[in-house]
């Protein structure tokens, strides 16, 4: 397993790293207990909605730090609408790829950027607080990477059924009993969904 030269460059000399004084938006995602934590700070022009400055902090591995570095490069100078279209796939491409098992570490930085933008939009009345429902769950599942191949579990059709009723999440997974990543994936699903106050219970079924 090897990192590209780009990843090493961004890991050793990350761009836009550090805490920001008086940011217009901030978001922290991940938790130390699951391995990574990223904080993103944004400075946004209220008239043009252009991201004028961005910085990050990362408690994470090389892949995490490098993705945060490059994704902050990618969104700097962009409007919020443009930045919303920047995904972990764009970051990964800009880094000349990542080893499959490390892709999941890169999703967090991309995710945190989106949360920071969303926080800004909600605070400035640009959008409503979205209702939590099945769609939110599916959006979260799209952020979970199957480490064997470095693709998300929704694209890989590993999610058979998603249900949400009165705070109870029910997910049927399509992963074989001998799949060594079952435990990792189940744990990640919980971490992604537990942060929503609307979620009371999560049941994940495997065949």
């Amino acid at each position, binding site marked *: 397993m090897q990192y590209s030269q780009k990843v090493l460059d961004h890991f050793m000399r990350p761009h836009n790293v550090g805490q920001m004084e008086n940011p217009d938006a901030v978001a922290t995602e991940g938790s130390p207990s699951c*391995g990574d934590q990223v904080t993103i700070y944004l400075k946004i022009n209220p008239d043009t909605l252009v991201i004028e400055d961005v910085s990050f902090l990362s408690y994470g*591995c090389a892949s995490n730090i490098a993705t945060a570095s490059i994704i902050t490069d990618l969104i700097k100078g962009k409007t919020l609408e443009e930045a919303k279209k920047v995904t972990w796939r764009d970051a990964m491409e800009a880094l000349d790829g990542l080893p499959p098992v490390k892709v999941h570490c890169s999703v967090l930085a991309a995710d945190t950027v989106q949360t920071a933008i969303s926080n800004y939009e909600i605070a400035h009345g640009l959008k409503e607080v979205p209702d939590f429902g099945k769609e939110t769950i599916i959006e979260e599942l799209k952020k979970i990477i199957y480490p064997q191949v470095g693709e998300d579990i929704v694209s890989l059709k590993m999610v058979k059924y998603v249900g949400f009723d009165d705070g109870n999440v029910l997910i049927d997974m399509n992963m074989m009993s001998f799949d060594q990543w079952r435990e990792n994936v189940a744990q990640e699903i919980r971490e992604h969904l537990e942060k929503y106050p609307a979620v009371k219970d999560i049941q994940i079924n495997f065949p």
Partner: protein
Amino acid sequence: MKSGNIYMDNCITTPPAPEVLKEMKTYFEDRFWFPASFISTGESTAEAVASFKKTVADSLNASPDELHFTSGGTLANNISIKGVTLSRAVRGRHVICSVVDYPDLLTNAAFLEKIGFEVSYLEPDAQGRVSPQQLKDAIRDDTVLFMTTIVNHVVGTIQPMREYRDILRAAGHKIHFHADACQAYGKLPLDVKELDVDTLSVSAHKIHGPQGVGALYLKRGTKLEQVIHGVKRIDGLQPGGIGIALMAGFAKAVELTFADLEGGIRHLRGLSDYLLEQLEARIPEIELNGPRGEGRACHNINVSIAYIEGEAVTMMLDLNGITVATGSACASQGLKPSYVLLAMGKNHVQSHGSIKFTLSRYNTREEVDFVVEKLAGITAELRSRSPLYKSTHPEER
């Protein structure tokens, strides 16, 4: 700096000694024959193998006929664990080990469970030590095997072998005692008679010998079911070929290590004490994992550095030509934190930030100074990027 310039991951494998390579060359080039009777080539090899066997047996205070060469420590563990449980299955199907044992033992335990054995897994204390009382409490009438890892491969904790021995002796029925000594070999004196083990595994490449060869001590009169089948070339327990050159290199490595075992231990103990002292002096908020001083093997220092992640640390050290290991989930192929640290009551963060240094006789004080200086710089750099550090140290904005 060239990668691998400073190597401090000797618990995984060690650099082969130059004398070992020289010794092996003869056997690779000129004396490659397998043992055989009535022909000069084969007979000279038989004599050589007998002398290699004696050298390794002497290092454990065993007799040569109790010493069996294998293709490494893992093979030795498998031959012993599977062999003894299969041969005693009619007497009982209960096995005892601990959750912090080496993966060889734990994966064998899982296999035994699959074929109908019951396994009791003992828990360690906060220092990684598995108490003799737990062993005593776990013994049942149908217990046939207790296996342990003498020196823990993650934190270097030395298990209380004498107390285990006394409990097993007093058990009232025969319980086979197997010890994985791969991390202990050459790091503390091992006397199979005093330990009173029935089987014990060692490996050559942990003591500057070649990779791919090890040995199993099997106490005279102890029966193991044959688990590997095939033509007998070198040894009945592991049929098939085992490299003559590898055994020659193993014996040479043993000679070098045991010529002055006490001196070697003293050197390693002094060096790792110095490493720990320097780490604690130079890096704030660092904690030692496992016991301090005599309770841990002389070559192992394992620390957790708060607020930063181990894969990032090991990669930055690597770019400075330094090789160490980490318990971070991010650095493992299975994305899991160290099961040993978690079992000792450490949390995920402590495991993620853990760095393991394992030293060898080739490491020097100058290397330790260089490594600590680099690590102090890397720690400061990564902490300056870390949201965990920033949120707990607001004065350092």
